[in-house]
């Protein structure tokens, strides 16, 4: 039963690559946004907050279609990136990573934001009285104290990215070896006669990955509490 075929390996490795790249690229943006939402008051803050959470409540096929319209070969952003930077998203694994990044972004940002909000701002004041400029305060006090939350956000975002289906298949289709992730491979296998065993194996792989990610996120959250108490 547990003989994973080369085709299945291809899907698993592609999923991992897509999810890792999506998470790594999304993380700096996620940290910046989490800090902005936790620490700043500005005009349009609640609108920005809503837009970030939109992929969570929008039908994934809608998000995928919007990505296709904007980042496709003839899309406004996609055309520009392809012509001037040579970055193409449509029907490529990079497009799958973009779709996964967008879909997992709300989950990635949330723990980061909560951990920044939990930091005692008086510690940042103390750092300032010791001669640290604001950006130094961020990198030597805020970020280290928020680190477990940042890692938890990355783990959750990764878990979501690895399971993403609707937006990905809408945006970049289901091409084996290029855009066929675990989820779209399972979808194809279920439609094929005799695909049940292979689909079952991939289902188990995705359960293991998701469960592992949740346990890791929980562990990071516990580390965060210990860290804030200085033990």
């Amino acid at each position, binding site marked *: 039963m547990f003989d994973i075929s080369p085709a299945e390996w291809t899907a698993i490795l592609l999923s991992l690559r897509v999810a890792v790249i999506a998470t790594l690229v999304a993380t700096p943006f996620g940290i910046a946004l989490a800090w902005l939402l936790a620490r700043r008051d500005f005009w349009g803050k609640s609108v920005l907050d809503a837009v970030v959470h939109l992929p969570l409540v929008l039908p994934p096929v809608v998000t995928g279609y919007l990505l296709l319209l904007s980042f496709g070969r003839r899309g406004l952003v996609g055309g520009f990136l392809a012509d001037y930077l040579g970055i193409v998203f449509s029907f490529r694994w990079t497009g799958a990573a973009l779709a996964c990044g967008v879909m997992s972004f709300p989950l990635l940002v949330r723990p980061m934001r909560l951990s920044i909000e939990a930091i005692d701002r008086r*510690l940042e004041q*103390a750092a300032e*009285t*010791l001669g640290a*400029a604001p950006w130094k305060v961020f990198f*030597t006090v805020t970020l*280290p104290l928020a680190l477990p939350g940042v890692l938890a956000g990355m783990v959750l975002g990764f878990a979501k990215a690895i399971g993403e289906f609707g937006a990905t298949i809408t945006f970049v289709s289901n091409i084996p070896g290029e855009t066929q992730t675990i989820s779209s491979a399972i979808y194809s296998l279920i439609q094929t006669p005799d695909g049940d065993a292979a689909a079952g194996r991939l289902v188990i792989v995705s359960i293991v990955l998701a469960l592992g990610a949740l346990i890791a996120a929980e562990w990071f959250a516990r580390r965060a509490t210990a860290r804030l*108490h*200085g*033990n």
Partner: protein
Amino acid sequence: MLRVDIEKRLGEFSLSASFTGEGRVIGLFGASGAGKTSLVNMIAGLLRPDRGSIVIDGETVDDTAAGIHVPTYRRRIGYVFQDARLFPHLNVAQNLDYGRRMSGLAPDPAHHQRIIDLLDIGALQGRRPGKLSGGERQRVALGRALLSKPRLLLLDEPLGALDEGRKLEILPYLARLRDEANVPMVYVSHDAAELRQLATQIVMLKQGRVTSFGGVKVLA
């Protein structure tokens, strides 16, 4: 030397204070709610006055008329808070070295050793702040502030969070700092006995106004 002449509204409360401090330890005395902490936060640059000026050691750090407001991190002040505020993710040695690193000062082992001896904190260096007693934490906070080589040390009720026994344990260290560390201090307290032991000059605050000013005898 410290010159303060400020006005500030904080909701219903208004603070208006003007004094010039020359002594080694300026004691800021008043009941809670008199505006002592707000005043110290303004000297530190954490709070901005509505009107007026603050001059530390000849440098104007605040002057609303001239549009001057030097940010906290460029004021070269040390600040010891009632609740120590040690960085929980750093050990004692890293906490002590933080100010020097952030201000880009060259290592000064002799000065470092002198402060550590003065406060008896050499044995604590490898520990995390969570594993220190209240008194130890406050001594490390004092050391951390002094090691950033401030030109003015602000102490806001540094003994406020400690019980009587611990207070008596820290007081001698503060007296030693006053006599040996060569850094002028602003010492905030609501405890007249504490100030009688430490201060060389008193600024008395009542409901946001300076009511008396002079030697320690104004506490009587």
